[in-house]
């Protein structure tokens, strides 16, 4: 029995609810083995208007059931993205959103204007939650006024779907969620990595050159399910759940907790076929319980 997995998320009609998380799928062109068959959408590696070198190594450190990363948003800049990647995305049978970054609200706006209307770019995921850049990033994500200002700056420059990726490093994610909803976001993505630190006991210093990094992987999943649920209760727009998803059951937890779709990230590093396996596993779960569509999945989402 085939299950209808199609889902509408923040202005996009997707063939399935499993998306590739920014920074874990590159620009989608790197690995021939990366399974694109079941991909609902791809969010490309975070980009700034101008090229960025990124942080010095070591950039990653494995921790129990997780990894810390401080890549520092290394990237080629908007012009190279438009020239080298967007034309390939235009030929694919799923939408690509670009994860956009800036050091000021006006820089986010300028980047949006540069990318808006380029064939192959179906929407934007605003990154107001990167823990690994000196300016911007996390700052915009934990102040509701700054988060709204960035969202408005992007919203004014495009009619394409605008999603906002939230940081978990806040005391009340609902406040930020409502602020960006009011500022015109079409969907929320919850959550980005937690800020963490790990110490090299041989060197008596942090294992990452940036000192801190973003923690991802199964270690953060219960924290992420809770925060995605809190965000979903706070707003009417769809929430895309992210955080440590490695298999279908993990994804189903986010969906039942009120998310409309999910993103798979770190798991793709380990298993290039993770997204297809999560997609197929959700379909099998629904079929085994007699659901004909993803929409029939029961949700636990009491309203505040």
């Amino acid at each position, binding site marked *: 029995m085939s299950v209808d997995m199609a889902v509408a998320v923040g202005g996009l009609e997707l063939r399935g609810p499993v998306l590739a998380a920014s*920074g*874990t*799928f*590159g620009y989608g062109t*790197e*690995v*021939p*083995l*990366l399974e694109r068959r079941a991909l609902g959408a791809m969010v490309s*590696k975070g980009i700034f208007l101008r090229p960025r*070198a*990124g*942080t*010095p*190594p*070591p*950039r*990653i*450190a*494995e*921790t*129990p*059931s*997780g*990894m810390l*990363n401080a*890549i520092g948003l*290394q990237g080629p800049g908007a012009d190279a993205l438009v020239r080298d990647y967007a034309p390939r995305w235009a030929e694919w049978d799923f939408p690509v959103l670009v994860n956009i970054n800036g050091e000021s609200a006006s820089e986010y706006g300028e980047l949006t204007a540069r990318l808006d209307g380029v064939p192959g770019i179906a929407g934007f995921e605003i990154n107001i939650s990167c823990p690994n850049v000196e300016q911007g990033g996390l700052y915009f994500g934990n102040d509701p006024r700054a988060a709204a200002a960035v969202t408005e700056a992007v919203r004014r420059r495009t009619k394409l779907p605008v999603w906002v990726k939230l940081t978990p490093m806040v005391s009340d994610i609902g406040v930020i969620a409502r602020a960006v909803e009011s500022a015109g976001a079409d969907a929320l993505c919850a959550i980005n990595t937690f800020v963490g630190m790990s110490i*090299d*006991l*041989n*060197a008596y210093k942090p*294992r990452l050159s940036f000192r801190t990094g973003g923690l991802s*992987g*199964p270690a953060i999943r219960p924290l992420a399910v809770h925060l995605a649920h809190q965000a979903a209760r706070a707003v009417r727009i769809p929430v895309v759940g992210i955080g440590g998803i490695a298999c279908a059951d993990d994804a189903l937890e986010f969906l039942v907790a009120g998310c409309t779709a999910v993103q798979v990230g*770190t798991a*793709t*590093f*380990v*298993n*290039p*076929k993770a997204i297809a396996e999560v997609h197929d596993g959700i379909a099998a779960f629904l079929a085994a319980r007699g659901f004909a569509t993803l929409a029939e999945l029961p949700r636990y989402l009491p309203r505040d």
Partner: protein
Amino acid sequence: MSGGRPSLFLLDAPVTSKRPAARGMFVISMRAPEIARAVRAGQFVNLGWAGGPLLRRPFSVYRAEDDEIEVVLKSVGAGTEQLLAMKHGGVVSCLGPLGRGFDLKGKSAVLISGGLGVAPMPLAARDAKAAGLRVTWVHGARTAAELCAESAGDEVVWATDDGSKGFHGTAVAAAADADVVLACGPNRMLAAVAERWPEAQVAVETYMGCGTGVCLGCAVPLKRGGYDRACKEGPVYRAADIDWPALPSHLSYAVTA
């Protein structure tokens, strides 16, 4: 990627044997036919296994013959400890071959390895000989017991820091010039190789996330500025291209539960 024939494989590879190569150093063989046929000297595989650490672990391919590949390892943390404990028939998820290997052109090659830097050398000796090069392999270690007992090539030179076997000193000091200089070992040793032979091809070691070019975790600092990826543009580099002081010289493996 070149179209047509697939160049990257994800295989469940059963372990077929394990043998000691030096004190604390072992060679593990596994059945991975497509990778064994495709791999070139200097390339690596990224290994994962049930109950293992979250991330895969990269290993140079040590030898490849018929349907089998071999990797060489020491116990440096929980992950390698598990891999060494694996029994015959235990299954390793094997992703590869990955990275860019050695470029072998000329009449003579010297292979310089320090400690676990033996990892890519038997395959390098095989490919260099196939390309018509005369191969000298210079093996270095702290002491005789830590020298890898296996070798390949037309001539083998041993070097130990304590003089307990062969040349008393480093492998770099023991090596003679050749058309092609290949080196693998601690990054500090490779920096010394770069001083003497800027054109040498060195295989560097970094922490690695995905092994496939998407995570940008394995950044290698370049003299011309910026970083590229050990897993994609590397792990083999022209020695003079690397910004050696900026490349971490000691990797700490104390990791995971």
